[in-house]
């Protein structure tokens, strides 16, 4: 199931014209599940018309062919509104570094051990001096938190990572959290710039200019090793649904 998600959504992303840069690593890490008996097909990430039954290189561009399996699109991604379409890519593994970070209360945490390990998480990327894209992203998270109810903080952890850690000191994150009425189970993360940069790179959310940061949300179930990236301005109900599905991954 995970694999299907991975490949199909990857293809979906390609069709939607989303650059592969962000999802490339995640897709490269996709592994076929042991004991999978269905027929295997391989295709080129850049040339979907190239299909082979054996692994190898693409005759057109030389890229390594990737494994594909057919199935129908999962319901969560079947939104027909192109701009709000949930653009996802899944991965069975994402190496999350145990970066030392600070939360909005100035408390020292280790990103992987304290926030992600064994949990289902939704991670977005913000900075507090951003006025255009971050308020809607954050308002969406706030709504998501409300919809999650008592699950927030118990089974599901919401995380907002600052892409501008130099300016976003914990006090600023705290004020930002208060402004958006963030409750328990929603952690705002900042820290040393080079450390946070490494973390952002690992999560596929690094940009040279903070103003170029993309409105994506990384949703994952660390226990199941399942990860997916969705459009951060999708309706909160859609995000909640994806979160629930992610939490149920085994």
């Amino acid at each position, binding site marked *: 199931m995970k694999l299907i998600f991975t490949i199909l959504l990857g293809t979906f992303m390609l069709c939607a014209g989303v650059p592969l840069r962000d999802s490339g690593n995640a897709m490269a890490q996709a592994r076929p599940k042991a004991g999978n008996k269905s027929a295997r097909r391989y295709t080129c990430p850049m040339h979907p018309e190239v299909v082979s039954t054996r692994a190898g290189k693409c005759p057109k561009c030389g890229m390594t062919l990737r494994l594909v399996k057919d199935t129908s699109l999962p319901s969560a991604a079947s939104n027909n509104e192109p701009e709000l379409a949930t653009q996802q890519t899944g991965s069975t593994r994402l190496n999350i570094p145990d970066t030392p970070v600070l939360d909005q209360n100035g408390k020292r945490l280790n990103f992987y051990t304290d926030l992600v390990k064994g949990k289902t998480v939704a991670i977005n990327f913000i900075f507090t001096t951003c006025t255009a*894209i971050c308020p809607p992203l954050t308002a969406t998270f706030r709504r998501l938190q409300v919809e999650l109810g008592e699950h927030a903080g118990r089974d599901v952890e919401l995380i907002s990572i600052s892409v501008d850690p130099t*300016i976003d000191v914990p006090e600023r994150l705290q004020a930002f959290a208060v402004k958006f009425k963030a409750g328990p189970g929603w952690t705002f993360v900042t820290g040393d710039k080079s450390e946070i940069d490494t973390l952002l790179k690992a999560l596929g959310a690094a940009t040279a200019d903070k103003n170029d940061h993309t409105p994506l949300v990384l949703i994952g179930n660390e226990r199941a090793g399942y990860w997916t990236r969705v459009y951060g301005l999708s309706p909160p109900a859609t995000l909640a649904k994806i979160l629930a599905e992610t939490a149920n991954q085994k």
Partner: protein
Amino acid sequence: MISSSHIVGKQASPKCPALFVFLLISLFLSAGAFAKATLQEPLSPQEKRGKQIYVQGTSASRNEILAYLGEASLEVPGSTMACANCHGLDGQGKPEGSINPSNLTWDSLTKPYGVTLSSGRKHPPYTERGLELAITRGVDPGGNRLPNVMPRYQMSGVDMSDLIAYLKRLGKDRDPGISEINIVIGTVVPTSDALAEMGKAIKAVSIAFFEELNTQGGIYNRRFELRFVETGDTPENTRGRVERFLKDEQVFAMTGAFVAGADKEIVALMEKRQVPLIGPLTLYPQIGFPLNRQVFYLLSGLDGQARALVEFAANQQPTKISSLAIVSPESEANRSLIGAVKDQASKHGMNSVENYVYVTAPLDVDEIAAKVQQKGQETIIFLGTGEAALAFMKKAERLHWSPSLYLFSANAGREVFDAPLSFNHKIFVSFPTLPADQTAEGVREFRALAEKYKLPSNHIVAQLSAYSAAKILVEGLKRAGKDVSREKLITALESLNRFDTGLTPRISYGPNRRIGATGAYVVSIDLEKKQYVPTKEWVDIN
């Protein structure tokens, strides 16, 4: 009779140069007056209400304004997604994170031949009705749906007309106190008996500084106009006066204001009215989060100096100290200082800092000295007056004990030079600036100004502070460019990095930084020669 015919005769002559000049001048004058009138036409009450909706997303009549995002599935207060957040205070649009908000200036919205956006979307010119549909339904006049990231808003009909009235002025609307030809700067001066002389000195130096700048040509063709407001008897009174002043005088920004005593009230007012204030004269800068963006301080207040003293003490050689004590008079004002000392000490692993409070000096001070000695403390941050510190040291001498004593220069005068010799080189005093900061050029410039404008020879510290504040303001205005706004001024000031006023430590600001020189010099005292031991050691606490 003769003179009148003389005049008539002159007027009758068409070739008379005087008349010609007169006519030309009156022509210029009227044209100038006209230009000034159009440029400075203030926003109407309706446009002002509209501006509040545009900038803050709230209604002046307290009606609800709601924003709906993502197919109306997410409802938030309008204040979360005010128009200006994305479209900018100038209406030009601020591209960010894959979205490209469109230009909302009226000229751009109503181009007679229609609008083609970079996304390829085309639409005929907007009308008032068209705008209303775009704002409430998310449809442009071409029938295209606006991108989903543009929320749909729900507001009352009155609020909608207010907003549209303001949109017609958007981008052409200047902040108060600025026109093509002038810029109004305000300052607060004290007038009470004890401070009247200081007030006069601040006034004189400010007038001289801006007058000199005007004779040199002003900035970007604008001349400075300076306005003063006097402090009141109480902080509340001062606040009321300044609030009326900002309203009546249409001040663009404030500089070097004397706010001591009304620190909290005045800076809160600046935040409320969104008026930048540069270099207020105070020992208590308000720099907590959420940050007051409007106010830029020159030097560390007592809070920053307390941190610098702890930092200096903690790094004393040869052995690092492991604990310290605070001795303070009973006072509400000291609470934040004690907090600052404890916080800074905790950064050096000193987590159990004790505070000893005395009510009256020297009586209680003697008792406390004995107590602190018993605890074996050798490092004392002394927040009281110089006299109290002196009493403390005299008692300590009687106890054959001579710990290191750390004081603020604002508290400790020359009386501490009479301390027992056992405290030689054991008294340390914080200075937010020292004469060593003054460069030859800075001093020459100030002296030339003082001479030319016959500035008073007293209250030099207050004068230098007001002068440096004005210099920083002018640097900010230069960097903000010709189309300056208050917001642009703030952004420009935030970019100052080690700016040299010539009279203070170098000044830096940033999005989180509102103190130009964070830290202090810590100077020890040679009690034999009765003088400070010169130092160049700056303790930075940034």
